[in-house]
């Protein structure tokens, strides 16, 4: 998921990668850095989304060399959209692109399975997202501080990991702002769900 705050964006993900009922990796990193100030949150097929983020990383790099500037989040989202739309029959990929740029500030885009690109106030994705839709609708506010946004992202992520069988492991977050990026890690035994943990 990606939640914007005043002056930036927090991206957040669990760490479960499964092959059927087997957890292939319990500490995977689904937050991929596409440029200095742009991240992608991957969901769907790990193979497909890894290949896609590799391509977008490469294209953004040549964009920067062409223009001598940092790419915008919009450009990153557009590149991802094109790749997914043009190959949608062969892909299973839901990607959130979020970051900070000098033109638009913090922004969040989601690219659907079919390849449409939507700019949203905040975005959730993956199997666990339906479990926290209501929570985020209730608690998300515009212009939060970085700390508030990160706390809410972790809380939502923890609840999704608790209810969704395909989510779990640890929580990884990255806060992106004009200052740069700040990574954070929460171990699986310190998940901030509550006030009443069902399990």
């Amino acid at each position, binding site marked *: 998921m990606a939640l914007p705050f005043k002056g930036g964006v927090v991206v957040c993900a669990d760490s479960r990668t499964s092959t059927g009922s087997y957890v292939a990796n319990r500490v995977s990193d689904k937050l991929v850095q596409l440029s200095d100030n742009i991240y992608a949150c991957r969901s769907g097929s790990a193979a497909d989304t890894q290949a896609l983020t590799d391509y977008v990383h490469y294209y953004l790099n040549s*964009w920067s060399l*062409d*223009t001598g*500037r940092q790419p*915008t989040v*919009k*450009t990153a*989202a*557009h*590149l991802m*959209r*094109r790749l997914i739309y043009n190959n949608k029959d062969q892909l299973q990929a839901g990607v959130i692109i979020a970051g900070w740029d000098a*033109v638009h500030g913090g922004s969040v885009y989601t690219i659907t399975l079919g390849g449409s690109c939507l700019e949203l106030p905040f975005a959730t994705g993956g199997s666990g997202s339906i479990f926290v839709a209501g929570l985020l609708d209730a608690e998300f506010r515009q212009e939060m501080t970085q700390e508030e946004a990160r706390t809410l992202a972790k809380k939502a992520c923890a609840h999704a990991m608790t209810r969704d069988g395909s989510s779990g492991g640890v929580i990884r977050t990255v806060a992106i702002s004009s200052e740069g990026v700040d990574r954070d890690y929460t171990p699986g035994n310190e998940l901030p769900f509550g006030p009443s943990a069902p399990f």
Partner: protein
Amino acid sequence: MASSGSGYDLSSSTFSPDGRIFQVEYATKAVENAGPVLGIKCSNGVVLGCAKPINHKMVVATTGSYKRIHTCDTHIGCASTGFLPDARVLVQRLVEESADWQEQYGSKIPPGVLGERLGTYAHYFTLHGALRPFGAAAVIAGYDPDTKECSLQLLEPNGAPYMYYGVATGKGKQAAKTELEKLNLHKAPILAEDAVKQILRILYLLHAEQKDAKPIEIELSWICEASGWTHQGVPKDLLKTSQEWAKEQLEQEEEEGNGRRLN
């Protein structure tokens, strides 16, 4: 062989012994014989202007069949001189490059990048024996919506795109450059509305200095806040008042000049 340089001008794929490519120089010559084109980068925009000689009484000049200033994208304008058909190929390339960029990246192409790409394209035509360099120069005015900056570039037949504060090419470019330098654009940029006036003044001046001059028609366009940061023709009413101002200025200058001569 008559001199050491002769015989090396048939193909652009061969250097002359003193390191020149004559075909490219001849192409530049072709540009110097065509109607003048001027561009000024302003504090609040960028302005393009050109004077088109009407070569025959029966030519219908205002139909647009004779256009020298083209819109290549909403934020890109191109004024060209030299062989018009050659210039149109360059314009077509600008249109394609900017549309491709938008398709690929979902944003407008930065004008600097566009100029470089057109340069690469034009340069290719100076490398091969089977090709002929473009007998045209393009003055590219651009606005970058991301950085909110305007730019002005000149692309010459050799393929080198340079950025300018004020630029002139085509017939009478030396006189025009002198006039532009007097405006001190690199130190104190002027307003787009004033640049319209100055470009008109210089174009009329060039025309007056020419001996057996054909009648001319003026094309003027700009990118500024008044045009919504898109490339548009200068509004007719502003054009009219500026034309009057420019002609008045020239008359005054002439009177002063005559007075000085008498003293």
